[in-house]
C-alpha cells in the first residue's frame, strides 16, 4: 500500500513534468483565444521555441539566452499569425495550419543548415540546460515521514521552468480577471465593437494578446529542448500544442480549469508510462495503443458534451470589420 502511494506520488511528480509545456501553451491559448483569435498555431510556436532555444543554447552556451530567444521566436510566429488574421483579416484556422507546417519545415531546414545533423541540434552539456533545482532543506525534511517525501519528490527537484509554468497559471488568472489589460482582453473576445467604441484599439489589443501567448509558447519550447530535454529533435512538439488547445476548450477558456485539464492529460500520460505492460486488477493488461490513445479518446468523449457544452468567447474566429 505504502509502495502504491509512493508510486502515485511519483506519478504526480511526472504529471507535473509532462504537464509543464501543456500549461504554458494552454495559458498562451487562453490569451489569444480570449482576445478572439483561434490559435491552433500553438503547436508551431512551441516547436519554433524549442528549436530556437536549443540552437541558441548550443551556439552560445547560455540557457538563459536560449530561453530569451525562444520567447522571441514564439512572438515572431505570433506576429505572423497576427499579420494574417488581424491585419489582413485572414482565416485564423488556415493561418494556424500554415504556421504549424512552416514551423515543421523551417526548424528542420535551418537545423540542417546550421548543424548538419539531420535536423537535430547538438546535445547540450548539463551546464547549458535548466537542470533540476534542489530546494533548501530537502535533506532535513527527509526525516519528516510523509511530508518529507512529498517535499523532496513533488515540490523540490524540478527545473526552473516547471515553477515558471506553475506561476503562469495564477498570473494568467490574475491578469485576466484583475487587470485593465484583462478586462479589455475579455471584452475584445466577446464584443470587439464595444472595445473599439470605448476608444481602445482592437488591433493592438489582439496583437498584445498574441505576443504574450507567443512568449509563453517560447518558454514551453525552451522547456522541451533545454530543460526537460537536452537538444532539439525534429517534430519534438509531438502534438502537445493540440493537446494544450484541447485543455483550453475543456477548461472553458478559464485559466484554472485549463490548468486542471493539463494536469489530467499529464497524469494520463504519466500513468500510461507506468501502467504499460502491468496487469491491472479486473481489466488485465491494457494494450499500449489504447493507453496512448486515452487522451484523445477522452478529449473526444468529453467534448461530445459529457462535460456540458463549452462556451467559447463570442467573437472568436471572426475578423473584426469596422
Amino acid at each position, binding site marked *: 500500500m505504502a509502495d502504491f502511494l509512493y508510486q502515485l506520488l511519483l506519478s504526480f511528480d511526472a504529471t507535473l513534468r509532462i504537464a509543464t509545456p501543456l500549461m504554458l501553451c494552454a495559458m498562451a491559448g487562453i490569451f489569444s483565444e480570449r482576445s478572439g483569435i483561434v490559435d491552433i498555431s500553438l503547436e508551431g510556436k512551441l516547436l519554433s521555441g524549442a528549436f530556437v532555444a536549443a540552437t541558441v543554447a548550443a551556439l552560445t552556451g547560455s540557457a538563459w539566452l536560449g530561453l530569451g530567444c525562444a520567447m522571441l521566436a514564439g512572438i515572431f510566429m505570433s506576429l505572423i499569425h497576427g499579420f494574417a488574421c488581424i491585419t489582413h483579416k485572414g482565416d485564423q484556422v488556415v493561418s494556424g495550419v500554415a504556421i504549424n507546417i512552416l514551423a515543421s519545415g523551417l526548424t528542420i531546414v535551418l537545423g540542417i543548415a546550421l548543424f548538419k545533423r539531420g535536423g537535430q541540434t547538438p546535445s547540450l552539456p548539463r551546464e547549458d540546460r535548466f537542470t533540476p533545482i534542489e530546494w533548501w532543506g530537502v535533506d532535513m525534511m527527509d526525516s519528516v515521514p510523509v511530508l518529507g517525501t512529498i517535499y523532496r519528490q513533488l515540490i523540490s527537484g524540478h527545473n526552473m521552468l516547471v515553477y515558471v509554468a506553475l506561476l503562469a497559471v495564477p498570473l494568467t488568472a490574475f491578469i485576466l480577471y*484583475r*487587470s*485593465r*489589460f*484583462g*478586462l*479589455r482582453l*475579455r*471584452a475584445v473576445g*466577446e*464584443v470587439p*465593437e*464595444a*472595445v*473599439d*467604441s*470605448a*476608444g*481602445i*484599439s482592437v488591433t493592438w489589443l489582439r496583437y498584445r494578446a498574441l505576443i504574450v501567448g507567443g512568449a509563453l509558447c517560447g518558454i514551453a519550447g525552451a522547456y522541451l529542448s533545454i530543460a526537460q530535454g537536452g537538444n532539439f529533435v525534429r517534430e519534438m512538439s509531438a502534438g502537445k500544442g493540440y493537446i494544450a488547445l484541447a485543455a483550453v476548450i475543456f477548461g472553458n477558456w478559464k485559466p484554472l480549469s485549463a490548468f486542471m485539464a493539463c494536469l489530467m492529460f499529464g497524469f494520463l500520460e504519466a500513468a500510461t508510462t507506468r501502467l504499460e505492460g502491468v496487469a491491472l486488477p479486473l481489466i488485465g493488461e491494457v494494450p499500449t495503443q489504447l493507453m496512448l490513445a486515452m487522451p484523445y479518446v477522452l478529449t473526444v468523449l468529453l467534448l461530445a458534451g459529457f462535460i456540458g457544452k463549452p462556451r467559447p468567447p*463570442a467573437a472568436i474566429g471572426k475578423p473584426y470589420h*469596422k
Partner: protein
Amino acid sequence: MNTALELKNVSKSFGLVKANKNINLAVEAGSIHGIIGENGAGKSTLMNIIYGMHRADSGEIHFGGQHVDVRSSADAIEHGIGMVHQHFMLVPTFTVLENVMLGTEGGLMLRDGRGAALERLLHLSETYNLKVDPHALVSDLNVGQRQRVEIIKALKGGAKVLILDEPTGVLTPQEADQLFEILKVLRDDGVSVLLITHKLSEIMDITDTVSIMRQGEMVGHRKTSETSPQELAELMVGREVLLEVDRKPAKPGEVRFSAKNLGYTNAQGVVELEDINFEVRSGEILGVAGVSGNGQTQLMETLAGMRHLTSGSLNILGTEVTAADQTDPRIIRDLGVGHIPEDRHTHGLVLNFEARENMILGFQDTGLAGDGKLFDYTAIQKNCEDKMAHYDVRPPNPRLNAKNFSGGNQQKIVIAREFSANPGVLLVGQPTRGVDVGAIEFIHKQLLELRDAGCAILLVSVELDEIMSLSDRIMVLCDGQNVGIIDSAKADRQTLGLMMAGQRQEAAA
C-alpha cells in the same frame, strides 16, 4: 451662436457605395438636433465618422470651432463626444460596472479605479434618473435597462456632444418619453444632442433643429418649428409620398390557421411566448403589433417550425401540431405555409448564391429544380426569369449573387419565391424593412391581392402604420403575451400604444 460641432464636406465610401457625399452640418451647443433619412441614407456612417469609428475619406470635423483630426474613438471621447450606437455595444458577460469602466479603468489594476467608477456611475444614474444595478450582469438586463447603461457609458467622460443612433427603436413609447426627459435635462446642461430616429413624431416633439439625408447626401436643414412632417417625409424620399393603402373590406372564409395556448420556452428556460391564442381565416390579414423584442420573432419562428413550441398547439390547414411533434420548417412548408422571414439576410436568402438559386431556396425538392435526379438549370433559370419579370426585380439577372441586389430587390426575390408558391397560409415578417417607398407600395398591393385570393395571412411589423393600414384584425404582443386582438377599424395609435406597453384591451378601451 455657439457651434459645438461642425462638419465640412465630409465624404466616405465603402467600395463602390458612397455612403456620405460632401456632408455639411452644424450643431448648436445646448440643442437637440435631429437627423432623419431612409434606411441606408448614411446616417450611422456619418455619426461613426464623428465618433472616430470610421475615418472620412475627405472633409473636416470641427469641435467647438476647432479643427480636429479624429482618428479613433479615443480622440472623439477626448474631445467630449459620447455615442449610443444603433446596435448595443455592451459585453453581455460583464457587469454593468465593468461595461462602464471599459476604456476608463483608472489604473493598471481594476481595483485602482473601481471605486471612482462606481461613484461616477451612481452619480450619473441619480442625476439623470438612469436606474440600473451596477453589479447586475448585462445579459440579465432588458433592452430598456441596457440602453440606460449605454447612455451612462456615453456620459461618463462628461460628454459635450451626445450622439444617439435610433435609440427609440427598441423602447416602448413610455420608455421613449422617459428618455426624452433625460435629453432635455442634458440640453439644459449645455450638452448638444444628435438624435437619429425614423419617427417623425419624435422629431417634431423634441428636436430644435433637424437635418435630412437622402442617399448619402444632406438634402436640407430645418428649424423644427418651421417645418412639418409632410415636408420632412418628402425631403427624405425625394418625391411626394402617398402612403395610404387602398384596402377593400375583407371577406373572411374558413379558419385556416390557429394557435391554442401556444407557449415557447427557450433552452435557457426563459419563457418567451405564453398562452397565445388566435385564428386566421382565409381571405384576411391578422396583424401582429408590438415593440420589437416582445416575442414577435419567436412567434414567427415557432409558427414556421424553426423553433419547437413547448406548450399548446397549432392547427395548420387542418393538421394539429403540438409540443410533442418534432416540427421543422420542411414539415410546415409541406402543409402549405409560406414564410417571408423578418430578417431576409439571415433567413430568407443565401447572399452568396445566385438569384436563381435563391429563387428555389426551400423549394429545392420540388419540380422547380427540375424533374429528374439532377438539377435542371434551364428550368431553374426560366423559373427565375419569369418571377423576376412578374415581381419587377431589378436588375433582372438570374446569375447575379443575391448580395449584389439592393435591399428592396432582395426582398422582392423572397416575396416572388414565397408568393408564387400559392400558399394556403402566409407568415409575413417585416415585409418592408429597409425598402423604398415604390417597392413598399408594390409589396402592399401584392399582399392584399393574395389576401383577396383567399390566403390566410399573419403579418408582423414594427411599423404601426403598416399594421394599421394592411390588417383586418390586430393582435398586440407584449412580453411574449397576447395583450388582445382588436378590429383594425377600431384601432388607433393611442390604443395600440397603450396595449404595446402591456395594458390589456379591456382596460384600454
